[in-house]
């Protein structure tokens, strides 16, 4: 249908335009002004500063010696990203300005910019306060000298390593101090982050292909347990924004990021919304709530078709807005509103908690309330699912009984003028109810599709 083509074009313009805007926005002059204004924060006792010079690049800070009346070196300030650019946070570089005195003692650090998800680094202020008075002789052990941020181990480790390594490099090369060997932790790829997503996606795909509801629920509950409760991560619009910003985590740190994004794209383009229908932890929770409630109160709320259809476009608006704002700001944090992050990280503001409660309450009465009307990732996957390789195929002997339309929980099926089902693929979560409930067994998943799209 033309409406989805139009939405896809709007998305491409938003994504492309936003990415271009981000590239043009990165003006070094602005960064320099920001750096200079931060110097006094990290070295508050200094009276004047030099320009950024030397190898490694640094600012020299001076103050007047009351005894001699002459200016003397009080310390140095530098950016970790200038010295150890290879050390990155989960979502990209973390630009930290460090102020250090001439004895190698850290005075203050200040985060100039980062791309981490705010909910995961909500305690960043408290975390960096722990660095005060550490010096180059410290080992900077996370969990021993410094407490990490819960659920943000990669970001915590990156900040600690970046500060430690850059301090020690500057101490040796600029201040000519003797420093102990830099602590380099062993890097090992977390295998669970590779194997478990593959297994979960495998079960989900099998569930779709075999039209098996048990397998679908195994993957849904697996997704809720592993992705939701254990890892507090999901495929989200934050990842789309980070791709537009060309910010990718290091594979060895976060293979799960690559596995989730890659497998979601592949399965959506091959079969349709496999991730949304069979893996998303928040969708799983919503379905559990809805099913539990309707086991007790079987009466379902039926919205008028016009209201229901028009309300579904809201998720596309949210997708475009989130992507555009994130790309313009150069930080995907603006897109950090998805309720799963608020729920599974338990880090949010009062507005966030109210938002979450409203969504969960609405999900009790409306099947997948968030997914159907608000989820920007669902909107994105829906646009991809529209061009998926395999689609639900309708055989020639359809009797027009409308059972498929009645059992579809997302109301993605409507009947055409000839009383044949039309499937709205961007709304179909591949629950397979239409296929399994069809009395003539005429529906199946095939490469070529007779079924029209709504």
């Amino acid at each position: 249908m033309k409406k989805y083509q139009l939405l896809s074009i709007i998305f491409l313009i938003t994504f492309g335009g936003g990415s271009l805007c981000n590239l043009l926005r990165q003006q070094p002059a602005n960064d320099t002004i920001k750096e200079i204004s931060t110097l006094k924060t990290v070295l508050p006792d200094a009276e004047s500063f030099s320009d950024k010079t030397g190898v490694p690049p640094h600012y020299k800070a001076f103050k007047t010696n009351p005894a001699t009346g002459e200016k003397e070196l009080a310390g140095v300030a530098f950016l970790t990203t200038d010295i150890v650019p290879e050390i990155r946070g989960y979502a990209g570089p973390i630009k930290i300005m460090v102020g250090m005195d001439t004895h190698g003692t850290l005075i203050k650090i200040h985060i100039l910019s980062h791309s981490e998800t705010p909910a995961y680094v909500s305690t960043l202020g408290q975390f960096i306060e722990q660095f005060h008075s550490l010096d180059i002789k410290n080992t900077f052990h996370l969990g021993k000298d410094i407490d990490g941020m819960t659920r943000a181990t990669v970001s915590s480790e990156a900040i600690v390593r970046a500060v430690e390594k850059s301090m020690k490099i500057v101490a040796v090369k600029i201040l000519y101090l003797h420093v102990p060997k830099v602590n380099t932790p062993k890097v090992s790829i977390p295998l669970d982050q590779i194997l478990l997503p593959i297994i979960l996606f495998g079960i989900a795909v099998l569930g779709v292909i075999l039209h098996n509801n048990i397998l679908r629920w195994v993957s849904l509950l697996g997704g809720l347990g592993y992705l939701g409760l254990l890892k507090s991560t999901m495929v989200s619009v934050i990842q789309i924004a980070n791709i537009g910003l060309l910010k990718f985590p290091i594979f060895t740190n976060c293979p799960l990021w690559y596995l989730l994004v890659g497998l979601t794209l592949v399965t959506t383009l091959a079969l349709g919304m496999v991730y949304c229908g069979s893996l998303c932890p928040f969708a799983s929770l919503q379905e559990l709530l809805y099913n539990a409630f309707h086991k007790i109160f079987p009466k379902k709320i039926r919205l008028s078709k016009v209201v229901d259809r028009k309300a579904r476009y809201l998720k596309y608006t949210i997708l475009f807005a989130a992507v555009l704002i994130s790309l313009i700001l150069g930080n995907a944090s603006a897109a950090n509103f998805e309720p799963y992050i608020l729920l599974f990280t338990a880090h949010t503001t009062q507005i966030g908690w109210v938002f979450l409660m409203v969504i969960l309450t609405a999900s009790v009465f409306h099947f997948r309330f968030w997914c159907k009307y608000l989820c920007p990732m669902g909107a994105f996957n829906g646009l991809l699912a529209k061009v998926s390789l395999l689609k639900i195929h309708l055989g020639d002997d359809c009797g027009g009984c409308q059972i498929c339309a009645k059992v579809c929980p997302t109301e993605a099926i409507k009947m055409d003028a000839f009383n044949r089902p039309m499937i709205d693929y961007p709304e179909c979560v591949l629950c397979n109810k239409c296929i399994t409930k069809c009395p003539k067994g005429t529906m199946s998943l095939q490469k070529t599709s007779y079924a029209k799209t709504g």
Partner: protein
Amino acid sequence: MQKQDKIFLASLGVTALLLVGIMAENIRSVLLPPGTADKIDVTKVKAAITQAGIIPYGAKYWKVIENKQPKD
């Protein structure tokens, strides 16, 4: 419009408004990233300065308090 439609639209509207509120908070946190809070105990410093017998003068210098000699 049916009653359930009105309730649904109201809840959708509230959710959308809350979402805008969260986005505004996020944008603010991006534009003003957390720095480090000052840990200076102003009262303690003021007391120590007064004890030392000096007071700030002209926002830049120190002045000896009358009839009180500065202590080391």
